[in-house]
């Protein structure tokens, strides 16, 4: 399993198709604005960094899994690789 992080909407637009089905997608920084996207909750690979969401005053639909920095560290240790996509 590979952990793909996206730090902006543009990064997701450019590289959102790259993660495989068994990978995880973590939205951080301005990437969290993607929670406004309908149907995002249906993608079981999506994780959103709760702190970055809070900082922007956003609420995520309940179907979306929010994670803490500690969860991120755990995911990092469990992943084969972490790949950051920027844009």
């Amino acid at each position: 399993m590979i952990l793909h992080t996206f730090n902006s909407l543009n990064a997701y637009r450019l590289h959102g198709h790259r993660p495989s089905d068994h990978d995880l997608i973590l939205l951080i920084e301005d990437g969290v604005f993607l929670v406004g996207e309908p149907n995002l909750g249906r993608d079981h690979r999506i994780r959103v960094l709760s702190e970055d969401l809070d900082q922007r005053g956003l609420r995520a639909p309940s179907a979306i899994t929010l994670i803490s920095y500690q969860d991120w560290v755990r995911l990092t240790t469990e992943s084969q690789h972490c790949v950051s996509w920027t844009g």
Partner: protein
Amino acid sequence: MTQLLFILSNPPGSSVYAQEAFDAALAGSAFSNIAMLFVAAGCLQLIEPRLETAAHQRKDFQRGFLALPDYDIQDIFCCAQSYKDHHLQTASLVVQPALLSQPEISALIERADSVLSF
């Protein structure tokens, strides 16, 4: 030998990412197998630069790509879709990359021991 994969997604010129990635790849070649994967605007690094170096106050480091085989870096890859999106087929390139589909890129990432994004 460790396999390092460099993913380059930034264009040259506007930031130091491209140049730093190149320097890091050369340094890494001393102790690892290096593969370089150009994606999105990163593939624009492959276009042969026509810089008046003095005017732009930066080195046209991309000419250094020609030296990559001397550093035992043979694996120069580019996302086939990005290559097409940026019309590289009609551009004059410093080096010709091997074009990879998205499934091939996923396999490349899985095979690597470490992945570095620039």
